[in-house]
């Protein structure tokens, strides 16, 4: 049963992302837990795939580190079970890992979803799975009561929006700008347009791609987003710590601090909204 809706019930949701197993299993546990302490409302856990076509260099490198550290789908599920956090967890990965899970005789992609439900995951984001190809996964998610998050891009319009609206659950991932993941110093005006297109959707709208600072978070939430998704800015901290040989504890502290900055930025943005929306 997905816990995601609750996360949006109480003000804007801060949704951080980390690649699981980056740079190693143990550190990664600490990092994810630090995100919760920093105010995460939902956490996106990246299950590393060898061909991350939607990612920029920051997350590509994280994926390489995690794979070299021995991360696999099986280890990923162990990781989720071992985590001591109390927020909803979304698995972000590419479709081939979902599809292949369980070996040649498994029921695809049901086997992966069943296992995900068992370890306590709440949903999925699959960047290379557009609505057109999502039926099998959608059905499995329905069976196990998990959410399937879809991305809406700046280029998504008309019929495509409707198709996604029919399939999406949990939240919609509003891609702030064209391109691949990665922190940016500017936040695109494409965000406002996208949010505008989605204004009548019931599902919460979380904006991602390029959010780097508390200020960004503030501005985006002030502009109407129900949540913010932040990946590269956090992965950068992991990468830097790894390069400098810092202790996992020190890195976890920095992650918590950054999470807090972003989470508080989102809250500030929410406070600025006029007319102030009612909290449900």
């Amino acid at each position, binding site marked *: 049963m997905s816990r995601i809706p609750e996360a949006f019930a109480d003000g804007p949701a801060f949704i951080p992302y980390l690649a699981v197993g980056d740079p190693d299993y143990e550190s990664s546990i600490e990092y994810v837990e630090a995100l919760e302490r920093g105010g995460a409302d939902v956490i996106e856990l990246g299950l590393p795939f060898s*061909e991350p076509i939607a990612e920029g260099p920051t997350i590509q490198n994280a994926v390489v580190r995690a794979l070299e550290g021995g991360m696999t789908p099986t280890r990923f599920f162990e990781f989720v079970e071992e985590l001591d956090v109390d927020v909803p967890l979304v698995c972000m990965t590419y479709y081939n890992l979902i599809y292949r899970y369980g070996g040649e005789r498994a029921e695809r992609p049901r086997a992966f979803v069943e296992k995900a439900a068992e370890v306590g995951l709440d949903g999925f984001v699959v960047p290379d799975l*557009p609505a057109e190809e999502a039926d099998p996964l959608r059905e499995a998610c329905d069976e196990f009561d998990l959410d399937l998050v879809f*991305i809406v891009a700046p280029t998504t319009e008309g019929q495509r929006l409707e198709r996604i609206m029919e399939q999406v659950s949990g939240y919609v991932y509003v891609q702030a700008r064209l391109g691949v993941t990665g922190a940016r110093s500017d936040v695109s005006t494409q965000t406002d347009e996208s949010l505008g297109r989605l204004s009548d959707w019931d599902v919460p709208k979380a904006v991602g791609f390029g959010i780097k600072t508390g200020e960004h978070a503030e501005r985006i939430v002030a502009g109407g987003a129900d949540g913010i998704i932040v990946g590269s800015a956090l992965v950068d901290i992991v990468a830097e710590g790894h390069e400098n040989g810092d202790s996992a504890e020190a890195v976890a502290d920095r992650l918590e601090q950054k999470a807090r900055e972003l989470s508080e930025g989102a809250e500030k943005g929410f406070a600025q909204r006029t007319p102030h929306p009612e909290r449900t």
Partner: protein
Amino acid sequence: GKFGRYGGQYVPEALMPAIEELEDAYERYVLNNEDGFMDEFRQRLRDFGGRPTPTQYAERLSERYDRDVYMKREDLLHGGAHKLNNALGQVLLAKYMGKERIIAETGAGQHGTATAMACAHLDFDCEVYMGERDINRQRPNVFRMKINGAEVNPVTVGRGTLKEAISETMRDWATNVEDTHYVIGSVVGPHPFPAMVRDFQSVISEEAREQMREQAGTLPDSVLACAGGGSNTMGAFAEFVDDDGVDLYAVEAGGSSLSVDEEKGVAPNSASLSTGGEGVLHGARTKLLQDYDGQIMESHSVSSGLDYAGVGPELAYLVDENRATPVNVDDDAALEAFHRLSRMEGVIPALETAHAFAYLENNHEDLGDTVLVNVSGRGDKDLESVIEETEKRGIENAPDMSMFSGGLR
């Protein structure tokens, strides 16, 4: 957009509108010849590309194998490989669609050079992504792209081969999708690419079928084509698929071995049709070299152009339907075939192409009275590799090349 269970459109949402736009353009211009697109395409293929290419009776091979061997000479196409058929088609389509910029990925460099040539011809800006390892294996092709005015962007992620270059080009496309067309170089990727690239390449079998009728008075009993991504393969097969009497052989790169090293994530071959499992990569469901979990393996072949972990979904389908037979030959056999064809027929084949002739050498008795082999490209781009690999492996039928032991300079 499906070939049985294969194919589809597994791409980021940001690309879906562009893919739908392309699907629309494919249907209008390619399938329905709107605005005379196909007429213009065929004319440019003729005048710029040099079509039709001949189907040649290979006298000495025919004698050697005691059956009639014909060669479809795509090595004579402008640029030296079949790749221009597709590159020219797509760049022209981008022009009809009002795009302003072309991107492409390339492995051996043949698709990159073909795209760069087509872009120079049609006055397009062009950027080509190429793995760093491939750049080092195929320097002359990099240089040719640059003098044709293209930018060549090295891809350093992973092992730096075609697989990584495709991923990187998809990222560029996702960033610049509004004014940019991605010219995929093979019958891979999301629909409509596999169908569209096949349609652009099917001129190979369209001509060859007619030429066989005229010259041999019969259709071939077997058609052989090397298969990496599979564009020359589908091009050579397409018009024969409905001819039940024609056996279709997709000759893959057996590399150094068909076994895989799951630990290292490396398959020392590129035989995805022969050994791969079903999966989703680069926009399509197809047969892939992958480990138990679904991580994509690094493939290997002595020939850069075959060095890819996936394969066109339509080929996967034809194999499942028993309409095409996947076979493979190893690196050594391909090198021997390279030297054999050069010496016996005066045609220096690409190392990719050499795989098809290696299969002919080893299995000619099963191929019927009349065999058609697709000479997908010429070998000029491979001379450095051939020197190095021939020496390293002590290939027996090679000429004395001691004067080249330091390479071509």
